């Protein structure tokens, strides 16, 4: 039977078992929306801005391991979506983004709502397609899903001109796919793994450093098993949190610009470093020359060869899928006669405990001003450490990462690579669609939340009982912190003047709003929000200490061990 292009789009989504599409209609996608309307297998979530559609689809994927799907119209629909696409690209999140395009005959004529979608998005997608023939539509969508979720995942965009959605062809959805130009490596090289195992067994001051690759490849359990077998310390990047239980003794906390003292010191001074699914980026290792001053052997496991030896020289590169490589490391360790050197390891742990005893995350709080860290700690207690936590970008993001101890993967949802303000609220929506019964908290600031606050309307429409914790210090806090530390206290445009009354704003959207101004009220307010208003969205506006800064801190361009600690200021 012949189907129209629009029917084919929906049939493809059904074949891929897509349950939610996040999107916003418009002229070029009207026929696709018409077909969406005629069925109920694929449900549509109407957002209030296309950026939010992509963030929601992105977080839907981050919290579930399914491919996120969004649908937007041509021109401004696409340009609004670009920030979301770039966010997903930087964090390697599998998305399929379907975009409408003006009819084929109008392309290149500056038609109404025309944009060069493939050109604009090329640098921030894993791949993109412009469908020029309805016969290619089904196979292109198949390729999009395949590319998005295999290898190093990422967003894939399919641009569909309007005339293609009304033309007819036979529908056939291929079960499998092979592309001569795309064959991601899975298994790691056994010989390389053998070298790695040898290094691990000879290490005197070993360290395991893991990133988002562990989460994306669902390798958390295997990583935990490997780390416990070896008894080595583990540190995780911002994107890796939850890959190894944060409450475990072997976990030294997050590393990097706002990492713990013990994690950064151990990273700098280790003699063998096992890096898994992490990419040594500038926020993680600081100045690469300073990092290289301490000699160490580096083993780097990553599915993307271009991540290896990009910023630091690696001794044993292992290209492969993280769980497969960990399996092989474990297999070889079990088969090996050698054991990690217990005497050196004990001395190393003694040193680490000494660093840890600095208690670098401690902070002082009186009875008058709420410290933002305290809010996160109380959230952890009230939710039993088991919530899905999304965040925006800035100080609150770092405090969330430092003080909420994630024991499970896919619970911590944030924009790590691109650092996109406005991510948190739409992300919380996506999490809730993927996990309908879950407790979802969005930790945000009064700056970030206003970048996608219109989504409070979407939350009302879909009855999403998200708890928004706004750490309101009246400043773009991270900007203010840098201005205080590096720009002579000149707070250029970092003061958010004329803030709305968030309580009334929440109420105007039909939600519950609460303002909390005293430390003693923090926990009761959280309990009220999470228990009494369990089934409602609650906007908790915490007025916090305006001067609080995030510590420890490695200033940009400095070495990892050159941290500024809270007590030093």
């Amino acid at each position, binding site marked *: 039977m012949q189907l129209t292009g629009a029917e084919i789009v929906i049939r493809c989504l059904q074949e891929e078992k897509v349950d939610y599409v996040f999107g916003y209609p418009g002229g070029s996608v009207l026929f696709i929306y018409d077909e969406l309307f005629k069925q109920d297998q694929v449900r549509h979530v109407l957002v209030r801005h296309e950026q939010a559609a992509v963030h929601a689809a992105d977080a839907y994927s981050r919290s579930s391991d399914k491919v996120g799907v969004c649908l937007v119209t041509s021109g401004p629909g696409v340009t609004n979506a670009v920030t979301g696409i770039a966010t997903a690209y930087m964090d390697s999140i599998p998305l399929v983004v379907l975009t409408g395009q003006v009819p084929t005959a109008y392309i290149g004529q500056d038609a109404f709502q025309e944009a060069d979608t*493939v*050109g604009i998005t*090329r*640098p921030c997608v*894993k*791949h993109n397609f*412009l469908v020029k023939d309805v016969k290619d539509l089904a196979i292109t969508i198949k390729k999009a899903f395949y*590319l998005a979720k295999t290898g190093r995942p990422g967003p894939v965009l399919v641009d569909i001109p309007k005339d293609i959605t009304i033309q007819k062809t036979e529908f056939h959805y291929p079960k499998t796919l092979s*592309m*001569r*130009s*795309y064959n991601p490596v899975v298994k790691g090289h056994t010989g390389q793994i053998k070298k790695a195992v040898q290094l691990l067994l000879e290490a005197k001051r070993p360290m395991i450093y893991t990133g988002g690759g562990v989460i994306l490849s669902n390798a958390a359990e295997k990583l935990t098993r490997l780390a416990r077998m070896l008894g080595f310390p583990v540190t995780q990047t911002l994107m890796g949190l939850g890959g190894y239980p944060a409450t475990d003794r072997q976990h030294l906390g997050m590393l990097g610009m706002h990492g713990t003292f013990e994690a950064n010191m151990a990273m700098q001074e280790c003699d063998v470093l096992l890096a898994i699914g992490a990419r040594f980026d500038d926020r993680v290792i600081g100045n690469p020359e300073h990092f290289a001053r301490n000699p160490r052997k580096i083993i780097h496991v990553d599915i*993307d*060869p*271009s991540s290896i*030896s*990009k910023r630091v020289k690696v001794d044993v590169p292992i290209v492969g899928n993280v769980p497969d490589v960990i399996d092989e490391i474990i297999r070889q360790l079990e088969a090996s006669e050698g054991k990690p050197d217990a005497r050196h390891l004990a001395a190393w742990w003694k040193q680490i405990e000494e660093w840890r005893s600095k208690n670098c995350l401690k902070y002082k709080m009186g009875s008058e001003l709420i410290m933002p860290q305290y809010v996160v700690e109380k959230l952890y207690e009230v939710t039993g450490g088991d919530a899905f936590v999304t965040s925006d970008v800035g100080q609150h993001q770092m405090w969330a990462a430092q003080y909420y101890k994630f024991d499970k993967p896919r619970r911590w949802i944030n924009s790590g690579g691109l650092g996109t303000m406005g991510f948190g609220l739409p992300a919380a929506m996506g999490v809730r669609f993927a996990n309908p019964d879950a407790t979802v908290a969005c930790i945000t600031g009064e700056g970030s939340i206003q970048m996608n606050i219109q989504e409070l309307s979407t939350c009302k429409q879909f009855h999403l009982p998200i708890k928004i914790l706004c750490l309101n210090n009246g400043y773009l806090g991270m900007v203010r912190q840098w201005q205080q530390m590096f720009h002579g206290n000149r707070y250029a445009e970092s003061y958010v003047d004329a803030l709305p009354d968030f309580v009334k704003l929440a109420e105007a959207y039909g939600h519950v709003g609460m303002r909390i101004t005293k430390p003693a009220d923090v926990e009761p307010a959280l309990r009220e929000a999470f228990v009494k208003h369990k089934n409602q969205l609650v906007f908790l506006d915490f007025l916090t200490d305006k001067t609080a800064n995030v510590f420890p801190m490695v200033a940009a361009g400095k070495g990892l061990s050159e941290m500024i600690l809270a007590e030093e200021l």
Partner: protein
Amino acid sequence: MRHIISILIENESGALSRVSGLFSARGYNIDSLTVAPTEDPSLSRMTIVSIGSDDIIEQITKQLNKLIDVVKVVDLSEAPHIERELMLVKVRATGKDREEMKRVADIFRGHIIDVTESSYVIELTGDGAKLDAFLNAIDRSLILETVRTGVCGIGRGDRILKV
């Protein structure tokens, strides 16, 4: 170091911009770039000359391999290879210059492929240095126009880049 990178890429619209976009986005240098379909019309072959340290060239080849449309990448300059470039030069050819120009073209094994009363078009192939040498050997003031294809290259002997 100067490197000659050869790429087999799916002959799809936008393939060239994916490659050139990668170079500009990551700040890599392109000295020359040539592209045309191969004997299999579904594939294009691209030759890129780039200058960079070993680390950068390693990143370039890795990043090129990461492009979904790219089928194969080799650094030709890692082993014996041949490189050629084609140049067309339009020169003023009048009076005594007419004979001299033909003589120099013959020395460089160039061909005169268009003749008018006052000009020649000379076709020349060779590596870049040879083409430069020709331009230096003739009177600069007689050059009306030049066009060069950029380098294309192929490995010697058993080195074959094919799907």
